[in-house]
């Protein structure tokens, strides 16, 4: 194994974690890391937080720690030939491998028909964040399309920078699909208290523009909301197009088995990887920073162990968000919850821990400004504790 040449495509959190873990677990053969962006590897969570606010210089986002590898930056993988075991890059060159790890992540979704219109931004990369930060310096009216974490964090930063902010989401509450009605309403209230104009249940149909620059958005029903700066935060889609025709199974991401093996000598990790939860068989693709690191480590371990000894990847997903003075943390999966109970604190106090139930077991634990205490509830999620035990315990 030691002389095998491992190529990792994708130089963000998952790819870098894979490379670092390969070295840590003893791989001393050739190791190549290919990244599409020209920037050295950097961390993304601060992009919508400290980087956007200007509190941090981009240098502080640098991800380091892996020595002894061949790093190819500004190189986009455009084709995979699993028979020849080669990756073709956009400069026409081919990179051969013995083992391949796909960690090409996801890219921001855009609204159709907005290419080339000034004042329309997404927030996914360092260049995106720097462009938005630059645009915010003139204190324009920012309109955020989308009620997810990225949009909500950017709205909070823009308010703190003194910009008028409007947030438009097609769901009932910002983050309501993730957090449920009660906590979603609490966070919507937080944004309103800070001066954000929140429009809920409003689907954006198009960007309105004049002479090549955005002037607002039109929502379903015909209302136009005016703003000179638009941030489109409507999620991300996995970067799998370059793998078309390779023989890998592509669906919502690269479809792997329980061990993150995608077939044909290829593994996948991070936002791009879809794998079945060994406990439920349900396929997941997770776009969290923590998952990228965990899957990178798991792929490195399984790749070195060999397929016969590879073990299933299991995780308790973890994600956090910073908005104003609130830190929101989530263990597990909150979507589609059947029941939600606040078990410590309260929405009125602005600090709480809530448990979420699905199919009779604890599916998630959510904390708001109860950071250390939340960790104690993680085991309930990891063990899929019966919901009845939670209700009885609280009674």
């Amino acid at each position, binding site marked *: 194994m030691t002389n095998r040449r491992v190529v990792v495509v994708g130089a963000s959190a998952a790819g870098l*974690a894979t490379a*670092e*873990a390969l070295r*840590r677990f003893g791989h001393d053969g050739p190791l190549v890391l290919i990244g599409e962006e020209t920037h050295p590897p950097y*961390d993304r*969570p601060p992009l919508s937080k400290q980087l956007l606010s200007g509190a941090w210089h981009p240098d*502080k986002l640098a*991800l380091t*720690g892996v020595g002894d590898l061949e790093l190819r930056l500004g190189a986009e993988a455009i084709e995979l030939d699993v028979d020849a075991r080669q990756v073709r890059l956009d400069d026409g060159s081919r990179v051969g491998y013995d083992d391949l790890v796909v960690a090409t992540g996801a890219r921001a979704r855009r609204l159709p028909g907005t290419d080339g219109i000034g004042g329309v931004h997404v927030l996914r990369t360092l260049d995106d964040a720097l462009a938005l930060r630059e645009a915010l310096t003139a204190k324009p009216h920012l309109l955020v399309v989308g009620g997810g974490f990225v949009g909500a964090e950017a709205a909070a930063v823009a308010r703190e920078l003194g910009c008028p902010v409007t947030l438009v989401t097609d769901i009932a509450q910002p983050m309501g699909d993730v957090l449920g009605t009660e906590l979603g309403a609490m966070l919507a209230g937080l944004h309103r208290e800070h001066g954000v104009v929140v429009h809920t249940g409003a689907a954006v149909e198009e960007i309105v523009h004049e002479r090549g620059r955005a002037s607002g958005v039109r929502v379903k029903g015909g209302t136009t909301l005016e703003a000179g700066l638009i941030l489109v935060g409507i999620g991300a889609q996995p970067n799998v197009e370059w793998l078309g025709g390779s023989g890998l199974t592509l669906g919502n991401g690269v479809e792997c088995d329980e061990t993150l093996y995608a077939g044909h000598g290829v593994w996948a990790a991070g936002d791009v990887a879809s794998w079945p939860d060994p406990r439920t068989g349900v396929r997941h693709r997770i776009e*969290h*920073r*923590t998952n990228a*690191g*965990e899957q990178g*480590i798991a792929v490195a371990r399984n790749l070195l162990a060999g397929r016969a000894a590879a073990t299933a990847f299991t995780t308790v997903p*973890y994600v*956090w968000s*910073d908005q104003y003075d609130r*830190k929101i*943390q989530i263990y597990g999966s909150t979507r589609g919850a059947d029941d939600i109970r606040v078990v410590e604190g309260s929405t009125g106090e602005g600090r709480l821990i809530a448990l979420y139930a699905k199919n009779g077991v604890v599916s998630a634990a959510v904390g708001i400004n109860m*950071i*250390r205490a*939340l*960790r104690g509830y*993680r085991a309930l999620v990891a063990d899929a504790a019966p919901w009845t035990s939670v209700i009885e315990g609280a009674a």
Partner: protein
Amino acid sequence: MEITVEEDKCVGAGQCVLVAPEVFDQRDDDGIVILLDARPPAAQHDATRQAAQVCPAAAILVRG
């Protein structure tokens, strides 16, 4: 092995405590990392390296 932590990068995820509870803890009020042992014994090295790698804020630096 020598460990340093960057408190201003720490996001309070607590992943390090889950992996290496003898080396890391969290403050009660804001959840920021507490380094219990900057030079952990050999028996803790694997867990410490794992903790540094799973930190979602890349706030733990391990040397040696």
